[in-house]
Each structure stands twice: as structure tokens, then as C-alpha cells.
């Protein structure tokens, strides 16, 4: 009980946020400015998710060559930009990180 109720309520909350605009769009007027703003949701949110993973190690900024995740991430950015291939980006990024970690240790 002590865990099930919070799990259900967390799920309900998450589901209602996912549904929110999908259900109410059309019934409320969305200002034009907001419509145009939404185009920037993917680049802003996704970069905010991945950039800290590259430049922070254990919560502090690490822009040195010893930061394997930063270098591997930069290689992955290059691969993604040139090839647009998801599998290639993940595989080459991961291989680069492993090679760097093997070199560093």
C-alpha cells in the first residue's frame, strides 16, 4: 500500500501531462507565438538532456582531455552531423569511449 498508491498517482500525473495539450488543443486558442515557440522544443530539451552528460563528471565541469565522455560525445556529434545515422552515432560514440577509457586506465 505504502508504495502502490504513490506509484499510481505518479503514473496518473505523468499521463495527464502527456495528454494535456493533445486533449485540449482546438478547444482552447493557442497564441501564434506559442505555436512558433514549440518548434524549438526538440533542440532545446534534447540538448539540455545530453550536454551535461558530456561536460560534467560527478557534477563538476570537466573540459579536459581526460574526460572521455566529452571526446566521445564530440566524435558522436560529428558522426551524427555527417551521416544522420542513429546506430552509427551510438556505436562509434560507444567504441570511442571504450578506447579512450582503455588508454586512460
Amino acid at each position, binding site marked *: 500500500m505504502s508504495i502502490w498508491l504513490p506509484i499510481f498517482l505518479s503514473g496518473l500525473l505523468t499521463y495527464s501531462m502527456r495528454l494535456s495539450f493533445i486533449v485540449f488543443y482546438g478547444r482552447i486558442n493557442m497564441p501564434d507565438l506559442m505555436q512558433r515557440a*514549440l518548434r524549438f522544443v526538440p533542440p*532545446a530539451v*534534447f*540538448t539540455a538532456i*545530453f550536454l551535461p552528460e558530456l561536460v560534467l563528471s560527478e557534477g563538476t565541469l570537466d573540459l579536459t582531455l581526460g574526460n572521455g565522455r566529452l571526446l566521445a560525445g564530440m566524435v558522436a556529434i560529428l558522426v551524427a552531423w555527417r551521416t544522420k545515422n542513429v546506430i552509427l552515432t551510438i556505436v562509434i560514440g560507444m567504441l570511442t*569511449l571504450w578506447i579512450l577509457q582503455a588508454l586512460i586506465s
Partner: protein
Amino acid sequence: MLAKKDNRTQETKNSVQVEFLSGVKAELPLMIGVVPFGMIYGILALSAGLPASAAQAMSVIIFAGSSQFVSAQLFSLSVPAVINIFTVGVINLRHTLYSASIAPYLQKLPNRWKWSLGYLLTDEAYAVSIIHYQEKDDGRNKHWFFLGAGLTLWTTWQLSTAVGVFLGASVPASWSLDFTLALTFIALTVPYLKDRASLGAALSGGVIAVIAFNLPLKLGLLVAAIIGILVGLSLERKS
């Protein structure tokens, strides 16, 4: 006349199938990142003291990876339930943005579609579907693409959680497989930064997320998203 109508039904059916399968196909590469993430979650939930049934149920009921990680940890620390639920809500607030962004494309669908696709609106399903919706072509059956992508992610998330929870298969930390998540988002973002405004939105969102990383409740992500969007808008106006 009849034959013509049959042809058209057949065409729609084909297009539905094609869309669904392209959704599955677009989502599959992302599973390289999702599988280790799901397994790591399963292990972590058990080590946080959750029963296997609850760990798996969270994947079905909440169905949002990073919030499940945090919630499981909060259970192990026995924080009050209200704080646990509130934390999940804040971490998942970005889904409201996804919802607003994809809503215009779903407007004409019947409610049962809206309610189902809403459940499937995760980072990864949203990412490939919004790209597909923004392509300029006849989009009558694109919700089948979304469904294909969403179900692929759902199935993979449940199975990989189950492998972690029930098989106890552990992933050594030295493999750094958690990094696949960052790589997935790089692959989903970089190729689509085609103009100055989206590049500006990405860079500012990323930098703010780094600066604000230590804010409680992962609020940094939300602050970063809002500032990134505003920067994108203002750059678009200038050009």
C-alpha cells in the same frame, strides 16, 4: 465504381501498414540505448528495496525512465509519498512541452487515438514522430507511424526492465552503458539543427542545463528548455 472503392481501401490499408512499419523501423535503432537503460533501472529498483512486482509496475504505470530511477531511490530513502510524487511530476514536466508540440498533428484523430498516443508519448517516441510529422508530405496516416514507434519503445522498455528485475542480469558500471542515452539524444538532435534559430535554441538550452545542473528536482532541465526556446524565438525574429 465498386472496384475503384476497393482499390482505395486497399491503398489506405497499405499506407497504414507502411506507416506503422516505418515507425517501428525508425524507433528500433534507439533501442541500443533503451535496453541497457531499462536493465540498469530494473537492477537499481531492486537494490533500492522495491519488490519485483512494483519495479515492473512502475515501468507500465509511470513509463518514464529517468523519473523511475529517482522515484525508486526516494522509496529507498523513505521520503514522504507526496514529495516522491511531486518529484516525478517535475521531472516529467517536459512531456507537457512534447504534448503541446505534437497536439496540432493529432487534432483530427478520434479520442481513443488521442488517449492511446498520449500514453505512448515518451522522449524517444516523440523524437522520431515529430520529425516525421514535420516532413512535408501527405500526412493522413502518420498516427500509425507514432503508434509503431511508441509500441516498439513500450515493448522494449517492459522487456528490458523485466530482464533487470527478474533475471537480475547486471551491467558492470565500467562498461559505461549509461552513456548510450546521451548518444541517443545526440543522434536525435544534431542532424536537425538546420537553421541559426534551432542551433541557438540547442546551444543555449545545453549551456543553461550545465550551469543549472545542480538545481534540485532536475529543475535545471526545465529552466534550460524555457531559455532555449526563448533564444530560438528571438533569433528567428531577427532573421
